């Protein structure tokens, strides 16, 4: 398609005979996208480039921010820091536990809820409540509920013979922060799964029932294949969130006891905003970004295989 302007006699006259019509360097679409791209650059690309520069520098604060280049020192420290590797290990364990439990419980809750015919909306409303609480408030609630002086959960556990302090020992503290996250975000998985379940054709389910398929076979061969795409999207959403988990741990355990709950985001925060070692923090932040992109790409590729990204 050509524009009418291209055939304007004025333009024809101005052009040398042999020259081809010049394509505008930035087309109409480009011009329309420019403000958005400038905004994106200001919000993402410039900070990203600054972050890369910081990771090769020592950042001075006093007298205005300035960078002293230190070469690969921050990166060398990152790869040789034993505490950092322990934090990565904890992050992965934490990631697998929270996302895994949330998926299993979320699907189970959704399946149960799907069978409820009366009062489903009321139950769903109650079930979704934790999701609307800010994570830092979940942390505070968790801290109070597990407090050994007056905490309800501490009291319940004492009555069944557990004498320790929940947030006082490494294993129980880790388990506690995992459960707090699971409590908050399982409803989201349940909600997404419930939406997926609604799309499973009733006629197929009835056909399976008529053929005498037991419940688990219906789940295995009809329900799960039908909702697997929805589950994959839920997994992607929760995974992205779980990688940057911070609030609950900061409020409840501060990364302790004995660093048992110090996952990478907590260490990043500490390095950047407590020690103000912004160069090293930039290196940690970029590594976290790479990890997030890896996880996201993995899930997106899976969705791509199923043709869901088109």
């Amino acid at each position: 398609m050509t524009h009418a302007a291209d055939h304007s006699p004025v333009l024809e006259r101005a052009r040398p005979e042999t020259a081809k019509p010049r394509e505008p360097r930035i087309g109409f679409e480009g011009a329309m996208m420019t403000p958005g791209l400038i905004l994106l650059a200001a919000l993402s690309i410039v900070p990203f480039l600054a972050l890369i520069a910081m990771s090769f520098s020592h950042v001075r604060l006093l007298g205005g921010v300035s960078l002293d280049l230190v070469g690969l020192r921050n990166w060398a420290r990152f790869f040789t820091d034993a505490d950092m590797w322990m934090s990565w290990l904890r992050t992965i364990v934490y990631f697998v536990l929270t996302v895994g439990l949330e998926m299993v419980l979320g699907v189970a809750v959704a399946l149960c809820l799907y069978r409820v015919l009366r009062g489903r909306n009321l139950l769903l409303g109650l079930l979704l409540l934790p999701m609307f609480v800010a994570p830092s408030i979940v942390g505070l609630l968790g801290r109070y509920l597990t407090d050994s002086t007056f905490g309800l959960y501490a009291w319940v556990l004492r009555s069944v013979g557990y004498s320790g302090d929940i947030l006082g020992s490494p294993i129980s503290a880790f388990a506690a922060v995992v459960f707090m996250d699971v409590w908050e975000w399982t409803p989201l998985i349940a909600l997404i799964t419930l939406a997926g379940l609604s799309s499973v054709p009733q006629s197929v389910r009835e056909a399976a029932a008529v053929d005498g398929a037991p419940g688990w076979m219906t789940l295995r061969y009809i329900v799960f294949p039908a909702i697997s795409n929805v589950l994959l999207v839920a997994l992607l959403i929760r995974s992205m969130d779980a990688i940057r988990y911070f609030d609950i741990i900061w409020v409840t355990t501060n990364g302790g006891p004995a660093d048992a709950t110090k996952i990478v985001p907590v260490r990043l925060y500490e390095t950047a905003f407590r020690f103000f070692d912004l160069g090293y923090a930039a290196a940690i932040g970029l590594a976290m970004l790479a990890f997030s992109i890896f996880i996201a790409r993995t899930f997106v590729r899976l969705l791509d295989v199923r043709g869901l990204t088109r």
Partner: protein
Amino acid sequence: MDRNPLGPSRRDVLRGALAAGAAVTLSGCGAQADAPHVVTVDQWRQFKGATLNFISENTAPTAAIAANTRPFTDLTGITINIVTLELTALVQRVALDLASGHAQYQVIYADPYQVLAPYQRGLVDLRTMQADPNLPHLPGGIADFIPAQMDAAGRFVDPNAYYTLPYDAPTMIWQYRRDLFDKYHDRMANDLGFDPTPSGERTWDEYYRIANWFNKHAGSDVKYGTGHQARQHDSLMNDFSNVLWSYGGAYFDNGKEVGRIGSRDPGPCRLDSDAAIAGAEFYQKLLAIADPASTTWDWDGVGAAFRAGRLAMCPNWHEFAASNEQVMPGKTGYSPLPRGPVATANMYGGTGVGISGNTRPHERGAAWLFIVWATSPQTQLANLKSKAGGGTPTRTSVYELPEVRAAEKRPSPMPNMLTAAAVRQAWEPDKIGLRPKIPMWNECNTAIFTQLSRMLTGGATPPDAMRTIKARVDQIVARGWVA
């Protein structure tokens, strides 16, 4: 489309609007106006109409001042806005404000270890303000401030310069249930073979035995003999340091000086010494009989447990006296912390107020008026009486006032003064506990309390924990500090 060829096009209007917006934004980001100044014979009124921002930790004296800033505004005509934050958040804001090159916060609550030592170059040397003939001088001069506090909170490296004025003075002391000690005194004395009455003459070993006695014999009155602020937090380092120093351990060579004046290069860490390891072994033993929830408590946690009647005694900051007296009037006693085999140490956690180096000349003058007023004897006395705060005076003259002296005894209108006898001893130069004042303290502190937490949760033995701390602190110090 019909368009007026002489008028501005839509594109021109858009360009003009963008340019105007950018100009307004840039002018907003750029020059910051100085505070107004009027020529007057009254030095206190010369910055009338100025507005100051004071950033502070949410502490008792600031709560008292924030509840009534009217006297300062009436005196100077200056409006003061107070932002109170938790200490970690305060340190972040101050660091970023100093980096910005502009003083959004002209007056800074400068914790000696987290603000003064790392960012001393961003604070004004207050000698220049005190020497300025156009500004009012400090009532009583700096000599009126308790000397150990003036050094610890106000100075860094240069023993003559001072960057802050001592503003509050929380100090760790022994807080105990006086009613229970009275009730069980004779039985305890008989069983233990010494007078259990808390005082600076008791030893940490005796403290341990008293706590153990309460655990075994006073279950109907109190659940545990002792509780501690042993969460993986700054509080754990504070609690442990009292024991460490009393056993003769030290974080660095010349530890007293590194604590009092500070250092940029403190040398190698000495936590691998036999004395330090002995202190760590005792601390682990003590925590083994303490309330198990101790490993989840910071100072607020242990304070709440003590007030809830769960503990017979605990080491905690003396400014908790006000809330103790509110909940358990007349039931609490205060004494300096026990001594160890080598010394007595009572951790000092006081802070000063300073002026941002990014301030403009008149702002700086106005900020000086505020810090002189906020640390003046009259204001410290008013803080002591305040229902909103409590206050912990930092001036010798305030402790000498007759009404303050009278308040040291019950019934006291100034409950924090019930601790005066204990803190007066704790602030003696050989008894005050001063952690290292080094720029990289925040990171060293984290290494210390993390390893201590490992030790208390069974992840490391005391010698291992001390040696690991030494290795990490040496690494951090070797990296140095560039602000």
